[in-house]
């Protein structure tokens, strides 16, 4: 008996008014993979993530998670099934402490039934896992810097105990060193058994971390393969990478 892929998209289309954001997208993600989603601005990458975590409803097509159709579910329902993620603009609950932010993930995610105190203990563990500063755990999130906020956001997503983590430009706003640390963290997360689908505009990150890359352009999938295959793909070079792709080879 073959195991079904973790995530499966079939002919997914979404439009906003007259603009087709994604068109007939098909792909699969297997367990414990890191898959990169790349493409120029407006290619539909973030839209696709929002369709997977159910913030947007697709116009047509189907989405299956562990073989189960999730096309009609709501964001909180897919979160409980094991899909969680971070957004392009770091979001959190600003007037709550870092530990409370993450505890909410523990309380309402896949783990579910646990007391507030237990959830806070678990939240502290997750914050330590993402290497968040120990002495800032009780700091209100609105008083954190962008790198700390990104870690809280990541910890909050991890606290829901996901099987699939959707990362939308997780290095945006981070400096070089913080960006490197974020990449190390993504590797560490994968080692813990979590599958990752990440949108990233920095090709070097994609090349260094992803097992497989899917390229979108104008809402359509134009290529899929290993990072090496993708950077050598004619269509990808023409529409996205341009001549600068030479430096990635």
């Amino acid at each position, binding site marked *: 008996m073959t195991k079904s892929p973790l995530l499966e998209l079939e002919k997914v289309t979404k439009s906003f008014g007259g603009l087709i954001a994604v068109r007939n997208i098909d792909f699969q993600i297997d367990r414990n993979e890191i898959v990169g989603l790349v493409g120029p601005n407006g290619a539909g990458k973030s839209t696709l993530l929002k369709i997977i*975590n159910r913030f947007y409803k697709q116009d047509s097509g189907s989405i299956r998670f562990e073989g189960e159709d999730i096309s009609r579910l709501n964001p909180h329902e897919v979160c409980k099934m094991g899909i969680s993620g971070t957004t392009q603009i770091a979001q959190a*609950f600003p007037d709550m*402490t870092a530990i409370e932010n993450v505890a909410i993930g523990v309380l309402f995610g896949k783990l579910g039934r646990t007391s*507030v105190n237990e959830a806070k203990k678990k939240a502290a563990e997750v914050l330590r896992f993402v290497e968040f500063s120990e002495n800032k755990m*009780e700091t209100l999130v609105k008083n954190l810097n962008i790198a700390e906020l990104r870690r809280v956001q990541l910890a909050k997503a991890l606290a829901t105990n996901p099987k699939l983590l959707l990362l939308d430009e997780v290095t945006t706003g981070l400096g070089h060193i913080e960006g490197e640390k974020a990449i190390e963290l993504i590797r560490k997360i994968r080692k813990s058994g979590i599958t990752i689908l990440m949108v990233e505009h920095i090709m070097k990150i994609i090349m260094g971390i992803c097992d497989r890359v899917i390229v979108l352009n104008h809402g359509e999938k134009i290529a899929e393969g290993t990072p090496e295959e993708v950077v050598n793909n004619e269509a990808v070079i023409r529409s996205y990478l341009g001549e600068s792709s030479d430096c990635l080879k």
Partner: protein
Amino acid sequence: MKTISYLHFSLKNITFYLSFLLIIIALVIPFFQISLYLMHVLILMFYYIGYSSSWNLLAYSGQVSFGHAAFLGIGAYITTLFTIRTSLPFIGVLIGAIVSAFIGLLIGLTCVRLREWFLALVTFGFSIIMIALTIELDEFTGGTLGLIVPKLFPSINQYQYYFYYYYIMLTLAVFLVLISQFIIRSKVGLAFAAIRENELEAKATGINVMKYKLLAFTISAFFTGLTGAFYAHFIGFINHQIYSPENSFWPIIINVIGGLATIEGPVIGSILRFFIIEFLRIMEPWVRTISPGMITIYPKMQILIFGAILVVVIILMPKGIAPQLRKFLTPKE
């Protein structure tokens, strides 16, 4: 690790001792042979603490009601109608609260997708509908003439009734503050806070936003109905004016001044309201002496002064007095 988040109410916190002291003072006051009038206004102060705490629970989930007098009135009318027919006031109070919660759930269903001003307007509209309904259904409600509300329990005289009622309303106020604290510190409270802070992020973190918003409406309406029912049995008379906009605005004014979505806010706001109103009452003879003409507009001064305080608080302390007071009282490390 020694830091205090705003969700904590640690025993070591000075706020706790201050609250304890306030309760002790409140418990002994009636033994000092205070006047019937003072007893009356203190009971009303406890009523406002209870009412504002109930309203605050809804605000804690990020939903603002401009028509909470509707739930207050439903609780009051249901207990009155029930007690008139059965002479079982305590059961009437409970049924009033339950019916109010049920109506709150229904209103919540229509409001759950609305935000800010739209939500405020729908809730306000509902309280206006209740005025019209009460006047139209005069066969049951007594119309504009209202209804005499039976006493909650028999008493030898009014002083004795007030004496016992003082403790009933004090218990209700303390209970509602404590239950608010319990809810806010629970899983449900964290969901309410998350929804208030960032609704989309709350959904992404696995919170069923619709369910918790409805729960906030239902809980808030239940406790508002309960407070309204006890209020009716104390005042002894109700008519359509219980649904008045003024009655809906008081918990908003009290909470904004005291501290919106905080435990202490309703207590601070209600105590402040009590002192301002009493101050104005004490000043009345003086105003009468220096400017007899002023006395006709004097009753309106209350709302004028509260309006002025509201403006000052919003400008100087946008989050109300409680967060400032907490900052002041929290021991520095």
